[in-house]
């Protein structure tokens, strides 16, 4: 087998962040090659470098004998690398057919002058291109007759994904790069995409597949490369990769030493257990008098179902973790609780307040406070100003000043840096600031969304220590984390979310040793 795409030590930094750090990769002609890694691992950046959207800083790339290094994006496309985008980028106001026709740009002779004369030959060419485009739409499973004339932006979500693939195929690519083609799809749509990918591959197309859905990647790929923090940490067959200790650590996060040895999947033996045993392990620890009760919650973004019938309860004084892979619907649940998104159906009640109806401001006043993902601090204001703004709506002048002082005592680093702009703090310090700001709203239930996102391991320790302390002082916490092992360590109970549904629940300790948790992240 010959090599189609070859990358040699490709590097790309953004400021001090090593988004892609010396990645070498070989994709064989006719194969389906998977590229996986946790959120922020550099997968999309690598694709952007290869396709010319982001310049190389060092390293080289070839497509067979054609060197791609340093070429602009449109030249690379003309060489035969075609791609789809993580967040669909169709030409929304053009019709589905026109979208596919534009995909033929590189192999269409320039007919601008011939068009002026409207020659019969021009019309014949146009007709054959349109037949071609309809054929491609049928190939990806779209009914050309029904949708060819509809504006691309009005198509259902799954059809838009397919149309983007049809447009990419119109280029007659040598290599097709699919960036999360199954994102936001329900299981049956995912199955359809999987069959499509396999069919295209059988017709001889080489595919580089990036996706968070491990079942999909592990199912169709012959080889899989794993990225973490911009580096390739493993490569091999799906079976090899899914039991690789480094990969498991990258996905499930790092726990403190005592846990790693007994972590799910740390030994290959855990692999043989059946998921069936797991549901039997579901304990009757659901609290009777919960402060937060969610029943059968369903939330969607337009046509995408993000959360499908989730139910969970949190009792006063608990730390409850909500874990699951990227895109499982964790943040959506938190945003629904905060009143930022309205659910399609189901109930969510916090201490007799109906969260599906109440205004976000009323929810905060009632004592349910969210510390959002990505921290959302005001980077150009000082630390002190950030904290003062959090108490802006309160009228108890002196009390809030003492509380700000108290918060700065609990996070001494914030006290030291009170006059610095918040944007100059490190990621961990910014997270502390975001949590401190949340505390100033005097929460009875604190929602923490991905507090460890993008932090170095020792900072993760600090943040989790702070969370533990806040809990010890009596605040109830609902914690959303990708770093599952870390979250399970401090959680009283936890729920495992997979594609919008709660798959497992149990005490933190039970789930910590449950191999099904690993499957929820890595597929199986």
């Amino acid at each position, binding site marked *: 087998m010959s090599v189609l795409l070859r990358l040699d030590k490709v590097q790309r930094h953004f400021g001090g962040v090593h988004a892609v750090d010396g990645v070498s990769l070989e994709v064989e002609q006719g194969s389906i090659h998977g590229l996986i890694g946790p959120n922020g691992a550099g997968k999309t950046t690598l694709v952007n470098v290869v*396709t*010319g*959207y982001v310049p190389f800083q060092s390293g080289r790339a070839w497509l067979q004998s054609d060197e791609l290094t340093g070429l*602009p*994006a*449109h*030249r690379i*496309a*003309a060489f035969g690398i*075609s*791609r789809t*985008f993580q967040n669909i*980028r*169709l*030409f*929304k*106001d*053009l*019709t589905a*057919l*026109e979208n596919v*026709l*534009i*995909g033929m*740009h*590189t192999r*269409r*002779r*320039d*007919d*601008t002058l*011939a*068009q*002026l004369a*409207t020659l019969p030959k021009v019309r014949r060419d146009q*007709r054959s291109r*349109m037949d071609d485009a*309809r054929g491609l739409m049928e190939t990806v499973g779209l009914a*050309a*007759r029904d949708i*060819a*004339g509809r504006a691309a932006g009005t198509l259902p979500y799954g059809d838009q994904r397919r149309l983007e693939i049809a*447009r*990419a195929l119109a*280029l007659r690519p040598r290599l097709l790069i699919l960036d999360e083609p199954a994102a936001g799809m329900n299981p049956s749509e995912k199955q359809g995409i999987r069959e499509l990918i396999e069919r295209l591959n059988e017709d001889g197309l080489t595919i580089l597949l990036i996706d968070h859905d491990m079942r999909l990647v592990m199912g169709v790929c012959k080889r899989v490369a794993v990225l973490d923090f911009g580096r390739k940490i493993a490569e091999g067959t799906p079976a090899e990769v899914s039991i690789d200790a480094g990969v498991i650590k990258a996905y499930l996060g790092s726990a403190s030493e005592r846990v790693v040895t007994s972590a799910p999947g740390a030994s290959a033996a855990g692999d043989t257990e059946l998921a069936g045993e797991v549901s039997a392990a579901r304990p009757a620890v659901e609290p009777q008098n919960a402060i937060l009760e969610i029943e059968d919650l369903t939330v969607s973004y337009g046509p995408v179902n993000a959360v499908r019938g989730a139910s969970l309860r949190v009792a006063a004084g608990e730390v409850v973790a909500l874990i699951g892979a990227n895109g499982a619907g964790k943040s959506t649940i938190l945003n629904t609780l905060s009143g930022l998104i309205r659910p399609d159906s189901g109930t969510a009640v916090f201490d007799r307040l109906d969260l599906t109806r109440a205004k976000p401001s009323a929810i905060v006043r009632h004592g349910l406070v969210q510390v959002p993902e990505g921290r959302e601090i005001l980077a150009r204001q000082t630390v002190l100003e950030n904290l003062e703004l959090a108490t802006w709506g309160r009228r108890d002048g002196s009390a809030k000043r003492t509380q700000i002082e108290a918060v700065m005592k609990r996070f001494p680093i914030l006290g030291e840096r009170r006059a610095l702009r918040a944007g100059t703090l490190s990621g961990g310090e910014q997270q502390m600031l975001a949590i401190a700001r949340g505390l100033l709203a005097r929460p009875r239930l604190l929602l923490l969304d991905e507090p460890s996102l993008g932090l170095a391991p020792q900072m993760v320790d600090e943040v989790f220590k702070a969370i533990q302390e806040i809990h010890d002082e009596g605040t109830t916490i609902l914690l959303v984390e990708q770093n599952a092992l870390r979250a399970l360590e401090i959680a009283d109970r936890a729920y495992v979310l997979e594609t919008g549904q709660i798959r497992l629940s149990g005490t933190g300790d039970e789930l910590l040793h449950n191999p099904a948790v690993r499957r929820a992240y890595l597929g199986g």
Partner: protein
Amino acid sequence: MDFFIQLFTDPVAFWNSHTLLIAQIGINSILASSMFIVLYSGQLSLAAPGFMAVGAYTAVLMDLYWHTPLALNIAAGVVFAGVVGVLVGLPVLRLRGVFLAIATIGFIEALRLGVILNLPITGEGLGLKNPSADPLGGINLVLGCLVVVLFLVWRLTKGRLGAAWAAIRQDELAALSQGIHVARYKMIAFVLSAVLAGFAGALEAHLNFFVDPGDQQYGVTRAVQILTFAVLGGSGHFLGPVVGALVVTSLPWVFEQAQAYINVVTGVFLIAVIVFRPQGIVGRGGLAIIRPWWWPRRNVRAPAPG
């Protein structure tokens, strides 16, 4: 009302009494086509009055100093406008959206205030006399040219070039991934638009005995007027800005009776159109200008089976 009554009952008398208006509609329609091309390729450029000025002054100066024939004067104006288009396009086409709009406004003001009002050859602030102008006879030339321009623009949107422009307007990154050389196609659109604006400028100069360097003529006011053609008429179809030019140019005559309040009345009319038909008078459907709600939406180029 008199305006419409005369138009429908006695078109010959209408033509004779409104020759200047009709010629102005023709000129504005060519400017609207110039605006259409940049908007169709996704660029908010307001540079048209600048290129008009280049075309107009070039043509008139040729006539004044060298007494060359009209066709040559206009051709020279068009070519020079195109050359200036390339020179302006090279630096400003890196910009997008409002930033491009502001940069092009900078260009037209720099040209008008900095060059035209200061050079002795352009008459400084006094403008130029143009003794060989032909206000009444020019109308046939203008309308003839308009037909040719509209045909060219219509065909351009149908070919590979037009498809590339539409793709760039919708999503530049996605257009790149289809192998479209975005920078080149944007430049082609910008220069073509400059050429058309220069053409309109040279023709307009031929209709007036006096080239006036005022803001109404080659400044921001004119740029905003041309933009209004496109916004009002709709920029998704080549006829949209032309219909916009027709409506905006004839409004003062249509609302003649409002007299002192004419600007208020036309303003309210424009706001009403934009509120009730934000996609412009002509939608993407083309000539289905006033499609009744029960009329089926035309599917774009229905497939021929087999």
